């Protein structure tokens, strides 16, 4: 039987998620025996024509040509899986969605007219049907291998959607919020990293995006009680998954609170 054809595609991103595939040092060569690496420019000059059985897509849609390219990739792919915060939520470059991209372009480039860009950074699923989204900034190596194994075996991947808190308990971490009053996004953030930040004595900063049943409103109260001002609350939600629905709304809520605070000060005066 012919091996399934694997393609790896890149849009706006840091290369970190496809590097995660190359970081599977012990599994890379066996994997190449299981699948035919048909298109992966970061790893090989060889190109095998599509269609492809499985496409992994890294990065977000940010240019007019991206809009066309993702349609071609979808049409050439039997299954399409997005990997990482950029591909699943628009990534950190989605911070442009809250600003004037013209101003950004002129801050970075003396001749902004040479640079073609869209005014928003959007996830792949906003443009084409996606068969599975793997979260993380970057994706976790073990989760990536699980997704690939599941695809080869024709079963759904075993990826938990619960919060980082559950991973903290499993790992035996002391809760940084309860024990040290450190603000932490763990309660609203999806597991997958292995509760890394709390294990290093810092609060989670949400790089895996929202978990499946988050209560951001309650967490904002906690973050404020632990000393974050409105600006800090806004910024902590507006980083690597700024445009994902839950973090987007949490950011707006923080902004409203900031405005209400300013209004109240105004009344006091």
């Amino acid at each position, binding site marked *: 039987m012919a091996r399934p054809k694997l393609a790896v595609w890149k849009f706006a991103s840091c290369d970190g998620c496809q590097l995660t595939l190359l*970081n599977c040092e012990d599994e890379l060569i066996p994997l190449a025996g299981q699948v035919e690496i048909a298109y992966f420019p970061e*790893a090989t000059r060889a190109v095998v024509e599509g269609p492809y059985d499985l496409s992994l897509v890294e990065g977000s849609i940010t240019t007019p040509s991206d809009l066309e390219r993702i349609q071609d990739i979808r049409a050439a792919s039997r299954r399409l899986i997005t990997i990482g915060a950029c591909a699943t939520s628009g990534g950190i*470059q989605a911070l442009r969605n809250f600003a004037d991209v013209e101003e*950004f372009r002129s801050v*970075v*480039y003396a001749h902004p007219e*040479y640079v073609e860009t869209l005014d928003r950074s959007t996830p792949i699923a906003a443009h084409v049907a996606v068969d599975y989204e793997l979260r993380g900034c970057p994706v976790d190596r073990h989760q990536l291998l699980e997704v690939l194994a599941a695809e080869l075996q024709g079963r759904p991947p075993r990826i938990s959607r619960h919060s980082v808190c559950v991973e903290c308990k499993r790992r035996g971490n002391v809760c940084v919020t309860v024990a040290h009053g450190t603000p932490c996004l763990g309660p609203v953030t999806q597991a997958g990293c292995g509760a*890394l930040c709390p294990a*290093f004595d810092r609060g989670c900063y949400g790089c895996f995006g929202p978990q499946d049943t988050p209560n951001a409103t309650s967490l904002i109260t906690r973050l404020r009680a632990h000393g974050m001002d409105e600006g800090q609350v806004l910024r902590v939600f507006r980083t690597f998954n700024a445009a994902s629905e839950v973090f987007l709304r949490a950011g707006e809520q923080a902004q409203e609170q900031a405005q209400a605070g300013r209004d109240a000060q105004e009344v006091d005066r």
Partner: protein
Amino acid sequence: MNHKLTDGGHVMHVGTLARVEGEGAMHIEMRDGRVTDVQLRIYEPPRFYEGFLRGRAWTEPPDITARICGICPVAYQMSACWAIEDACGVSVPEAIRQLRRLLYCGEWIESHALHVYLLHAPDFLGYDGAIELAADHPAVVETGLRLKKAGNQLMTVVGGRSIHPINVRVGGFHRMPRVSELRALRPVLEQALEDALATVRLVSGFDFPDMEQPYEYVALRPEVGYPIEEGRVVTSGSHDFEVRDFPAHIDEFQVPHSHALHARLDGGARGPYVVGPLARYTLNHDRLGDLARNAASEAGLGPVCRNPFRSIIVRAVELVEAVAEALRIIDGWSDGSAPSVAVPPRAGEGYGASEAPRGILFHRYVLDEDGTILDAQIVPPTSQNQAGIEADLKALVETWTDLDDHALQHRCEHAIRNYDPCISCATHFLDLTVGRS
């Protein structure tokens, strides 16, 4: 892709360069054996980091700028920390400096092993990529992957993970590793040292095209040791300046064919300048440890290396240096130092530079009194090397006129990979087209 122009010219174009980090292309036009145009086209879409850093807090650049590059996030974190600490008038104690150097060694090992074995060696050995190479030479690729894994393991212990480490903060680290955790890495690093020495022997046996380029080299030079995480800026033109004077000597400008800004030294009067392994090695050969210096000498490298194709040997020598440094730091580590110092914000401007695997990475921030970032400037190594890469391509096409289009195109791609270009970094980069008549 190669085609004739109606005016008798000839174009060589590679639309997607392979085995580079990020998206770029090459376009070369020739008429009567002369190169009339060379463009390293960087079409990787811009992400506007310098734009959205404005308005963020002074504590945020290490986590945010790490996301510029998945291959060298530590470089971004370190340059950012130095720059913010400089702006706030804070200097960090020796233990934190040592740990920064250790984490950075992990990144050099991971990044150089990736480039030497997976991206560059296939050019010398005639393969499309490392997977194809592994089919015929499994032991070679296994050595490379084992080295790369050692770098990643070191980064994971110190930084939490190898891509976008989470343990770095302005002022130091969130948590100090314990002696027991670092000592546990010793067997892995001892094997890595053997593998790194074997790498120098392997790559020094490759065939290298004759090519010497006259560029001014620019690299850091610290008070002691080989430049990794900090240093003053020195050049092969005998210039020597503080990191804070970087903007006075190096200015960036935009060309229509690239999303990455080009850079020039002192107005470009002395031609292109180059950063990275060749520059670091040539300007700091005296600073290599005994193991790395002896390995270089056995590989036939003198104190100066001006052949870009030999950069693979220099990277291998730097692998030896990075592993030996990591072992030295681990052996000297003791428990009990504070993981960070306070960095209270103040209004001002700060400058930071470190040696990313690909060369000098410069950061500059302007802060207001509450620590809000008013302005940010990031000058990555690949941007600075674009002019040198284009000049190499021009020299190469005009020298090897006897090569057929297919062989010439491959050699041009190889020449680009000499610089291990990181296009994701540079965009704020790369497409190959060659034309000739």
